[in-house]
């Protein structure tokens, strides 16, 4: 076979292209699991089973327990990502459910080339973008807009300082202000911020989920923090 020449391109898309072009054989998917493999997986303690193990059990044995274990393992991360993106519990629950229905619909095609969480978050992200489109929410309301005159100063939302550490204590109202402000960031900044700040996800992995170069993702996170800080400054945070 002739060697495949892959021109250098930065970013995860290029990496995937490279992998696809140089692969000689398709990677095994969950549906290729053999009886011996399944027996071995079933012999493992539940917590020792990998995500791929659980998918194999689900695809080959229609194990609802395996599916439930998979959902329970990742539900907090996936749900929080969706919830912090859409800001509404009802919509977040819908999107969460649809995400995992898509997961099982495509479970037989999943290969461990990407981490399960990355794959799952990509699905959740696409469904979230669909939600914006459907609800006409694509145009975010800029948090750069001037606050209304009747809005309270954020200074009043701070609960003062801890006498021992000297740290500023954060009130519930301020947290709610920030939570709402996050939902008003541009989509790409919001996605990057949520995955970085709340999930503590490495930039490389965020880049995979968002299908964007790592440098761009860093820029989005920095911009998001900057926008939030500017907003809070205008609201009186010194």
């Amino acid at each position: 076979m002739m060697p495949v020449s892959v021109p250098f391109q930065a970013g995860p898309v290029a990496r995937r292209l490279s992998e696809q072009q140089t692969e000689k054989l398709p990677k095994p998917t969950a549906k290729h699991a053999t009886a011996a493999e399944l027996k071995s997986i079933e012999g493992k303690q539940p917590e020792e089973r990998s995500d791929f193990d659980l998918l194999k059990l689900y695809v080959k044995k229609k194990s609802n327990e395996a599916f439930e274990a998979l959902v329970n393992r990742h539900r907090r991360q996936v749900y929080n990502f969706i919830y912090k993106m859409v800001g509404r519990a009802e919509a977040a629950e819908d999107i969460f459910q649809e995400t995992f229905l898509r997961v099982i619909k495509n479970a037989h095609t999943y290969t461990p080339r990407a981490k399960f969480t990355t794959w799952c978050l990509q699905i959740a992200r696409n469904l979230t973008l669909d939600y914006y489109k459907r609800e006409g929410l694509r145009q975010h309301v800029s948090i750069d807009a001037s606050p209304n005159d009747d809005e309270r100063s954020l200074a009043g939302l701070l609960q003062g300082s801890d006498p021992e550490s000297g740290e500023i204590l954060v009130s519930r109202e301020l947290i709610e202000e920030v939570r709402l402000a996050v939902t008003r960031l541009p989509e790409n900044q919001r996605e990057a911020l949520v995955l970085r700040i709340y999930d503590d996800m490495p930039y490389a992995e965020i880049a995979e989920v968002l299908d964007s170069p790592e440098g761009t993702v860093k820029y989005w996170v920095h911009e998001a923090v900057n926008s939030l800080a500017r907003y809070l400054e205008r609201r009186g945070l010194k």
Partner: protein
Amino acid sequence: MDTREKLIAWMLGDLSAEESRPLEARLATDAELQRQRSVLEGTLRAARAVPSADISQAALQRLFSAAALIDPEPEETRAAPAAHGDADIHVGELIRIDFMRGVLPRVAAVAVIAFVLGLGVWLTPGELQPTVATVRDDKGMHVVLDGELVEARVGETRRITFATGEVLLDGASSVRVRSTGANSAPAFEIERGRVVVTAAATPLELKVADRDVRLDKGAVLAVDYDRAYANIADNGAVVEVQRVPIGEVAALAEKAYGIKLDVGGIPENVRKYRVSFYGSGLDADAFVDSFIESASHFGITLDDSRRYLGYQSRAGTAPLEEWQLNIALLEGSASLRAGAETLQLAGRTPEAPNFVSVSAAAATDARTLDAEALSEQVVWAAGAEGAPIRHLRDVRQSNETLPSRTVIHTDTLVLNGEQGRRIFKLGGPEFDFPLPGGRKGRLVQLTSSGAAFEVEGELVREFVPFGQQAQD
């Protein structure tokens, strides 16, 4: 990268040691930079303090229930499920008659109902069909497969959602959903009922009463397709009789309740007159009473034995047509094709301020109503500016221009000083609507049976049935 950007990168640990050193040296002496660091620290602390949320157990259970219906390995060989005709279909007390369709749709409809009841009917023998949309109602959410019939009962609201729009079923409605391809919006066939279709992001195609309607992107269309239909379920727990000929209702009473009603005393032509009545929890006597009450304006009587129907000629009562279609374009643009004729549907105009567009009661009939006719027609109305996905309801006999952003509901409308009616305003910024428990809400949606509110201080949307709302 300017200094502030560098500061942010430094605080997030994104600068190398070499990049950090000059910034740290400056931070030791620069008061403005120290102030900025303080603000950024406060911001990051508040951002990190936002608590994590968890999905509700109810939603998880809905997911697990929906997942249990999906075949995870569609292309593998396995024992083929029974074809429709071989399936063990058992619909209990359900009797359903569709007067305008053939046998096959009836079987399909029964199959869907049996499926919903968990009676093991395979809708998609052989292979898994793609998910076309999702349906959400008070009970939860489930996926819609290609060709599936989605129904809503009287007083029930169901919402079909997909990537680029939504279809709202407002009680006693039925819509079939068809896939048009992996990356395309589904197509819809409205079989009956009141339905609001929103083409939010792409055009949509729908069929109703043998008419083809195309909604352009951004259009919102209300359809009221009132047609012959009957459903009596669970010993009268649900009774829907709509535009059914009097003679047929008598036959229905016998099938559902075992009551023999003799229609021999009614002239043949009068037996074909159609009646509508609805109810829940109707026993045999209550069913007959409802029937006679709805038929009495045609001169139908019942003797003391409650077995023999009679007729006393009565002038001036117009019989119901077999069906009536009303379509109103609420937002954007759309067109309707009926036979060889294509109509461009009109939205609000100075002459017809309340949205009515088309009304038809015959196969080739498709006409745009003028303002004068408006007062005689069912009108779906709303001040939909800025609220294109809001739910809308009908208004009868009104030709008053509605204020912007106003939605009116038949039961509660205040127009021309008529009693027992009320105007609601949608989507306002204030939480000023009194709710049970002394809370305040912001009205976001009206349905046939109640209203949905966003509740002040809570991240919830709450549905409050009419009659339970505090009056202001």
